[in-house]
């Protein structure tokens, strides 16, 4: 069964066509990588999936339901969570509070003025579990803004996971990281994938990471879907090589 179906989606900004007639389908439990040169429309594509803005034309189906015009915060309730290219966290709060806000929001407490004791304990337990999952427990009471780049990214992924999503969208999770940090984050993503609880779509620049992780790869170039297939078939694809390396003279 497909968790996500993008049907002939186009996004125009004035006369610029950022995404033009792209269709992809992502199966349950799959890890799909989206790659492409700079300016290929990858992040715009992500913004369409997560509901940051609606497409100009086309249809987006999530879990069999049409969500094309559903606002971002409602898509979160339906089980979709994302991270951003530039880490988006609450820098002046502790790791624990970052995750607590996310967990409370996910458990229907975003508008509560009061919580019963067992509710509070339950939220605390869920936060502890997520901290454990991403390995941030020792840093739970540090301010997120003071953590290393890699740990901040782990915290952001943890916030996305706190929403108990089944579709996770990761926008360049290893952007701007050193080798060690890249390794840690890649390990975390693979661990999530292997748990079988998540369908994951990620944008990534680092080809080692992509070929290491992905079940299937979709290549965007100038807003269009250039190729799609297994890592092996993409590596061998001439059109893809051309888009990345420029036409051989």
């Amino acid at each position: 069964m497909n968790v996500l179906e993008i049907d002939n989606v186009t996004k125009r900004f004035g006369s610029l066509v950022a995404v033009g007639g792209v269709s992809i389908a992502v199966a349950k439990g799959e890890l799909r990588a989206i790659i492409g040169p700079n300016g290929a429309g990858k992040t715009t594509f992500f913004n369409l999936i997560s509901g940051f803005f609606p497409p100009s034309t086309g249809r987006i189906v999530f879990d069999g339901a049409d969500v094309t015009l559903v606002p971002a915060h409602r898509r979160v309730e339906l089980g979709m969570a994302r991270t951003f290219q530039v880490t988006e966290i609450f820098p002046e709060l502790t790791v624990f509070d970052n995750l607590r806000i996310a967990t409370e929001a996910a458990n229907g407490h975003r508008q509560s003025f009061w919580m019963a004791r067992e509710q509070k304990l339950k939220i605390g337990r869920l936060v502890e579990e997520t901290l454990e999952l991403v390995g941030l427990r020792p840093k739970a009471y540090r301010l997120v803004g003071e953590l290393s780049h890699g740990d901040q990214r782990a915290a952001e992924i943890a916030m996305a996971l706190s929403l108990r999503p089944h579709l996770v969208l990761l926008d360049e999770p290893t952007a701007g990281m050193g080798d060690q940090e890249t390794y840690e984050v890649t390990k975390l993503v693979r661990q999530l994938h292997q748990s079988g609880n998540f369908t994951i779509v990620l944008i990534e620049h680092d080809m080692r990471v992509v070929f290491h992780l992905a079940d299937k790869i979709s290549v965007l170039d100038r807003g269009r879907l250039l190729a799609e297939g297994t890592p092996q078939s993409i590596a061998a694809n001439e059109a893809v090589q051309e888009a990345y390396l420029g036409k051989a003279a």
Partner: protein
Amino acid sequence: MKAGENSRKLVVLALIWAVLLFAPFWMPPLGGYTALGTRVLVLALAAMSVNFLLGFTGVLSFGHAAYFGLGAYGAGFALKFLAPSTPLSLLCGTLLGGIAGALLGALIVRRRGVYFAMVTIAFGQVFYYIAFQWSSLTGGDDGLRGFSRQPLHFGLFSIDILSSTNAFYYFVLFCFAAAVAVMGFILGSPFGRSMIAIRENERRARFLGIPIERHIWIAFTLSCFFMGFAGALYALLNNFADPRGLHYSQSGDFVMMAVMGGMRNFWGPLLGAAVFVVLQDYLSSITVNWMSFVGLLFVAMVLFFPRGLLGVIARRSAA
């Protein structure tokens, strides 16, 4: 680490309440007078209401005096035209400020940043000119007169808060404590944390499934209820309500108190209001241009201590 922080918080809290509780005893020997303390409390509550939005939701309203002034007129009208009852006047003032805030807030929260501030000023000035022009009801520029706070009746006994300034101080302190307790409770709730999430990172908050506009509207409305309550107390303090209480320069004063005291800190505006009111009281007896000195102090504070007085103190004691 957490336990130490908690016990330090308790000590600070005990200190604040002790200072407030004994103000009528320590203020006169230092050259103050009790009514000055009452004024600090009322304006501090208003500044804390502004800070509820500014410091904890990250939204700057530059027209909050409108809801403060509406609270004052609401209390005045209730005493003058409805019934001679202090609690009723507080209720009317709070409702008038809060309901006006709820209605206008629904229009205002669609804007952000500078536009938000501009729209709040514009709506604030609308109320100022209504109060100024509608002389038959509001007394126009002369203000609303002809009412005074009434003794509190508790069946067996009653408390005269009109002639005893100490009794009135404690009445206002009680109201202040109640309002501040509610405010603290809200900020400690999941909703309060969602406000802080919006302040910290609106985009992230949206993608946690928090409906930003609705939450800012709720925070705005709550803050206007607190503002109306503070305004009603202000009318009782002066036995008078005038259009200047609605003016945007009054809104500016509240923002100044919050920023000077430290807007990331719950108690910051209380300290800011105390400094502001005491300086005003002292300087205005020396020069009519007292505001230039307060303004200079404000500029210096923002330049050198952007976290405000309490921010500096908190950092010192943490280090």
